[in-house]
């Protein structure tokens, strides 16, 4: 049986005093948390993700890294394209010395959420569907994060960087970071945002990102999860895309012992969304993506391609739901789940779902689980590659397909190197 939160390890996080601001939001979240149990696998939503590992642990809020990270520590994570458009957070605390937002066009505001007032009325109002335990935890106790506001018709040329570095020191209890991000693009605005999570050691990270894309605005969002192999990551993303707006995201999951991405996107009339994902897993990792794409109004378009490469004893889960609401005619939705199993003990569970309440729609989904194509392997071998190199090269190709369109060159290069190393294809030379 699962213990109630009061008796569960997470209760340690609720005993700290409630931070200032957003009182109503926090009270509601806390009320939902009270008495709520850690979900177990008998619940449909958690069927493939066993949280048993969390039950043996106690959690406490992370403290600021001491001594504060020197800029040299942050340097490896900074991309030249985003030198003057970055906000850095260490253990969930804003790192002003490592941040720099001077390179932004006038009117664009990019600042720590602790400096925001409750006048930011959007917070907590975006997205739909019931929050899960980890999102509620964030809402009840978040203290820091970022706000990004882009005014009407401003097209931001430089990409923006949101960097979360986690180096919490353990003292028996597991440190927990609860970053909160709010992004709002006004009408006709356009922006490219890179969100990265890096870490070392064991900790729990529960970021919540809320996004509002107004009429005709375009947001491109790269999300890179490179938490440490011992970390737990439960992320929520809630996006609302207004009439004619576009939201394109790519979520790349490499790290974490146990992780879940939970994007939920609502599309208004004529809006477009891309919700691509890649999970590259090995060892004992479990990575889960639970997405919900809601075509709430007519003439929307969505594309979702989710790929998993699973090695070792790792396990990948994909649960992707597309809903076409009554009256959302002429919706065009396509969803693909493609999976590659590399080892005997690897496992994948995929559940693409379509729920359709309108008749004039074009919706399709597909799922495939398999191994490398023997013909392709043979082709490479006939060109002189040994079987292992041929396998690695094809594996790299399968995964790297999703990296090709990352617009920030230095980021694209570093991710390609990472994928090359993870697929053991690096020996073939610098393909990046």
């Amino acid at each position, binding site marked *: 049986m699962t213990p109630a939160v009061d008796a569960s390890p997470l209760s340690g996080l609720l005993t700290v005093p409630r931070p200032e601001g957003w009182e109503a939001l926090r009270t509601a979240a806390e009320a939902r948390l009270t008495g709520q149990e850690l979900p177990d696998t008998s619940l449909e939503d958690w069927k*493939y993700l066993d949280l048993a590992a969390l039950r043996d642990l106690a959690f406490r809020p992370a403290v600021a890294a001491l001594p504060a990270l020197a800029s040299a520590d942050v340097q490896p994570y900074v991309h030249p394209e985003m030198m003057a458009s970055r906000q850095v957070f260490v253990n969930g605390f804003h790192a002003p010395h490592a941040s720099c937002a001077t390179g932004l066009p006038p009117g664009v505001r990019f600042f720590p959420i602790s400096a925001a007032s409750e006048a930011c009325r959007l917070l907590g109002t975006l997205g739909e569907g019931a929050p899960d335990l980890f999102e509620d935890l964030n809402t009840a106790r978040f203290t820091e994060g970022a706000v990004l506001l882009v005014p009407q018709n401003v097209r931001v040329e430089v990409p923006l960087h949101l960097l979360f570095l986690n180096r919490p020191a353990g003292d028996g209890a597991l440190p927990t970071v609860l970053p909160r991000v709010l992004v709002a693009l006004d009408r006709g605005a356009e922006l490219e945002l890179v969100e990265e999570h890096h870490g070392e050691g064991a900790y729990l990270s529960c970021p919540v990102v809320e996004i509002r894309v107004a009429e005709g605005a375009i947001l491109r969002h790269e999300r890179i999860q490179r938490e440490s192999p011992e970390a737990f990551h439960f992320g929520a993303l809630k996006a609302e895309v207004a009439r004619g707006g576009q939201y394109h995201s790519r979520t790349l999951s490499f790290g974490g012992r146990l992780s879940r991405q939970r994007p939920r996107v609502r599309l208004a009339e004529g809006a477009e969304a891309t919700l691509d994902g890649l999970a590259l897993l090995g060892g004992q990792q479990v990575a889960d993506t639970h997405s919900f794409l809601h075509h709430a109004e007519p003439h929307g378009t969505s594309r979702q391609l989710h790929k998993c490469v699973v090695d070792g004893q790792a396990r990948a889960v994909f649960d992707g739901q597309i809903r076409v609401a009554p009256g959302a005619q002429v919706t065009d939705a396509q969803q693909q789940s493609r999976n590659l199993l*590399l080892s*005997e003990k690897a496992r*994948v569970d995929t559940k693409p779902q379509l*729920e*359709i309440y*309108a008749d004039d729609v074009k919706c399709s*989904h597909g799922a495939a*689980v398999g*191994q490398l194509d023997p013909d392709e392997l043979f082709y490479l071998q006939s060109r002189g590659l040994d079987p292992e190199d041929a396998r690695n090269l094809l594996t790299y190709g399968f995964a790297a397909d999703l990296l090709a369109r990352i617009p920030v060159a230095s980021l694209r290069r570093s991710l390609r190197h990472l994928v090359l190393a993870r697929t053991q294809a690096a020996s073939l030379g610098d393909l990046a």
Partner: protein
Amino acid sequence: MNSTFTGVTSQEYKYGFVTDIEADSVAPGLSEDVIRFISAKKGEPDWLLDFRLKAYRHWLTMTEPDWAKVAYPKPDFQKIVYYSAPKAKAPKYASMDEVDPELKRTFEKLGVPLNEQAALAGVAVDVVFDSVSVTTTYKEKLKAVGIIFCSFSEAVREHPDLVKKYLGSVVPYSDNFYAALNSAVFTDGSFVFIPKGVACPMDLSTYFRINNKESGQFERTLIVAEEGASVSYLEGCTAPQFDTNQLHAAVVELVALDQASIKYSTVQNWYAGDKDGVGGIFNFVTKRGLCKGRASHISWTQVETGSAITWKYPSCILLGDDSIGEFYSVALTNHKQQADTGTKMVHIGRNTKSTIISKGISAGDSSNSYRGLVKVQPKAEGARNFSQCDSMLIGQTCSASTFPYIEVQNRSARVEHEATTSKIGEEQLLYFQQRGIPAEEAISMIINGFCKDVFRELPMEFAVEATKLLSLKLEGSVG
């Protein structure tokens, strides 16, 4: 919206009449006493009563499943009549002439080929009428080749060892809520045994029919094909029209040994309720086949057009190496019908293969969901699955959903799933109409084309019936 799709009218249920026969029933309600009564009434051996009681006690600990995408008032299990047998004039009929003429007329109206009709159709029919098998034809002919085809009660009396060996071996009494209930209170059903090396010389067929207003139908079917045996089994279902909801919780178990082959075809047309969703059958059925032997083969084909609520997943457990499982389904819902149906393919043995073809058609205010599981266990080297699930929507107030679950634990497996959703294109209709084919007929032709991959798998008589049934059910929905 195109005006072609607007005129939704009710299609009256063709089979809605009640036969007035004095029934021999137990009072409504469920308890250990009722189970003992059923068992005693049927003169069952102690082991079977034990099986029922164990199932009942386990059922008491279970809760009704709610994960399916269907909404309905939960049945009150204390209001159901668990035993209702037509009162016989004699313990057993010597010939067809002794069968209650009222009953015979019922079957004539249903168009069940019985006696001479059966001979013409070349079909042996085991008719289940409110839980007790009334007459069995062709038994002698089948007996000559060693095939046993009889009612479940008779099998318990005549072949207890076979029943004991296989009953619950595919669907254990603890399997799920409705299977447990069925295991506790089932009254009759069909039993088929095909001995080693025998190919059944004809298609076997059973008609099920629910007649008593308050009675639930809990039938039990068990089909065993020994090494190298093969059989094709047809099941057709209709129920008269009542404005209360009736529960139908059947269990079907198939066992295929080495190189055996079982083909199970269903045309289900239980009463679906009226156009406002009043009445209709709750069809909560557990059907499962076990490919126990090497290179065994089980194939399910279903045409689901009836029932207010359908909750049904004919499945294959592919245990034997090289075994094959197939599922072909057409599910049509109209008015307020709700269907959550699909299959499970569990790959356990090496080089096992499965194919899933599902076609869902929703019209009116109905909800039609495909839910399927493809599971590849770690030892299932070389497993292969292909699934294709297509949905068609007719009108703006219906819904179609696809919920495939794919769980793979073997890297050599290849699993593919594809699903599409579409509607009947206005250009398609125009094309037909230009050539002088009226809209209604055109739609029927388009739908038959849409379902072709499934109809092809049905035995001839069923394919003809299914085609007619679909146009009948959709009559007035379009055009």
